[in-house]
């Protein structure tokens, strides 16, 4: 530890990058090494997906509602009130839905994974698995990262739909628009280039949330304080990764389609 403290900043950074690369390679190797933990994977999908559903749903509903309430006065001023469903659909499906869902999942899931694995590390449960001849990477890491990579896109799609419904409710506060007309307008304003890149980036968001949570938890120090540090660090790092991935995907999408 003293030696670690004596290292200069860039050396620590280089060591951290090396550690993360090794962790990533162990994860990839273990996906294909056989003996996939299906029951644990399904349990994690339930824990991550089903138990985050209400939070994501409520937040998405409020986001859709608030966006319409904010957009409406401006569009009405320009006589473009009919563009409200279109504007909401594009902004929710392309950007707000995926990013808001991912940020909520980073707060809920990455912290939970970081704390759970950190606490397992502190109480020697991970060591116990390893010493018993079992494979903690396969049981704890592979299942969680794959579950987040699958469930975050699913949650995003559901969140998008609920967000659009929130917009419909907001529109009906002041105006009257039929449910089918509203959703018809929303869907017709979207095409493949709106859906596909957004879906792809949510897979990366999910991967980042699972990976960061597992890495921080798995590499936490001994001592109860480190559990909190792992959880906190997992949220902060995963959130930063989400914005970074978003920036890159938007750039690539713009280059490919526009």
């Amino acid at each position, binding site marked *: *530890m*003293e*030696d670690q403290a004596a290292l200069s900043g860039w050396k620590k950074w280089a060591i951290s990058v090396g550690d993360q690369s090794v962790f990533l390679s162990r994860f990839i190797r273990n996906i294909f090494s056989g003996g996939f933990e299906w029951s644990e994977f399904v349990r994690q999908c339930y824990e991550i997906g089903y138990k985050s559903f209400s939070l994501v749903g409520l937040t998405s509903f409020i986001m859709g509602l608030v966006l319409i309430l904010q957009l409406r006065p401006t569009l009405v001023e320009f006589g473009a009130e009919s563009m409200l469903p279109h504007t909401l659909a594009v902004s929710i499906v392309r950007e707000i839905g995926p990013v808001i869902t991912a940020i909520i999942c980073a707060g809920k899931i990455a912290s939970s994974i970081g704390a*759970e694995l950190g*606490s*397992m590390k502190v*109480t*020697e*449960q991970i*060591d*116990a*698995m*390893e*010493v*018993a*001849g*079992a*494979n903690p990477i396969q*049981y704890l890491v592979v299942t969680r990262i794959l579950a987040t990579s699958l469930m975050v896109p699913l949650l995003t799609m559901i969140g998008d739909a609920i967000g659009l419904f929130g917009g419909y409710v907001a529109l009906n506060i002041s105006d009257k628009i039929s449910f089918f007309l509203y959703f018809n307008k929303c869907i017709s304003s979207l095409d493949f280039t709106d859906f596909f890149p957004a879906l792809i980036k949510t897979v990366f968001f999910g991967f980042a949330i699972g990976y960061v949570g597992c890495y921080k938890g798995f590499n936490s120090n001994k001592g109860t304080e480190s559990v909190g540090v792992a959880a906190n660090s997992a949220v902060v790092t995963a959130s930063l990764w989400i914005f970074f991935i978003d920036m890159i995907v938007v750039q690539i999408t713009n280059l490919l389609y526009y």
Partner: protein
Amino acid sequence: MEAVKEHRSTKSGVSSDEAIIEIKGLKKSFGSKEVLRNINLTVTKGENIVVLGKSGQGKSVTIQCIVGMLTPDAGSVKVFGKEVSELNDEELKDLRTHIGFLFQSGALFDSMTVRENLEFPLTRVLKLKDQNEIDQRVNEILEGVGLPEAAEKMPSDLSGGMRKRIGLARTLIVKPEIMLYDEPTTGLDPITSREISQLILEMQKKYKTTSIIITHDMECARITADRVVVMNDGEYIAEGSFDDLQHSDNQFVKSYFSDSI
């Protein structure tokens, strides 16, 4: 090191000259701190070795080197005649299936019931598929540690003594040939501590294991030890039976036994 008395009869009833664990010149440092300076130890089949020593002296580090959790800086650690540091991942995994390691805290998996904890090594390590066989082994080991009613409980519902018993059960369920105990009675009251020590001895007789027990508990040492090794400053300074070391001239060794005479 203080003279070693020849002591061949073991409490498990198993007695053999076959060296199961051989440690020679073991050294291990963490940063600038030299924890193990020169450890030499041979454990024969069926023997119960108790290691005594102050906290932070590297007692646990020694058994972590045996199981390959830590790599020695120098020296040799051989288990079943194989140099542990030279084993590849698969060989190390295979070796670990023959070694049971009981952690100080029990290290039960919090998210699983007691039954799932006990099934874990059977399905992941021994790769058993037959649920009847799994259930039979789980029930048998729970009877063995005296907790047949705890199967469906969560670890958080168990007392400290029960956690140690279940930890012991989870370790023994794969029938390891070697048992490594890291302070098995720490944090327990004297009565429960004695019960755990008796249980360790019972289980050793039943499963014919070879054991290294790291402890500060002199009652545990008295009950379980065939041979006691005393550690100080990263070296073993005395070795012998419990009775022999009680009459040692070494002041450091005396300080351990003064309260237990």
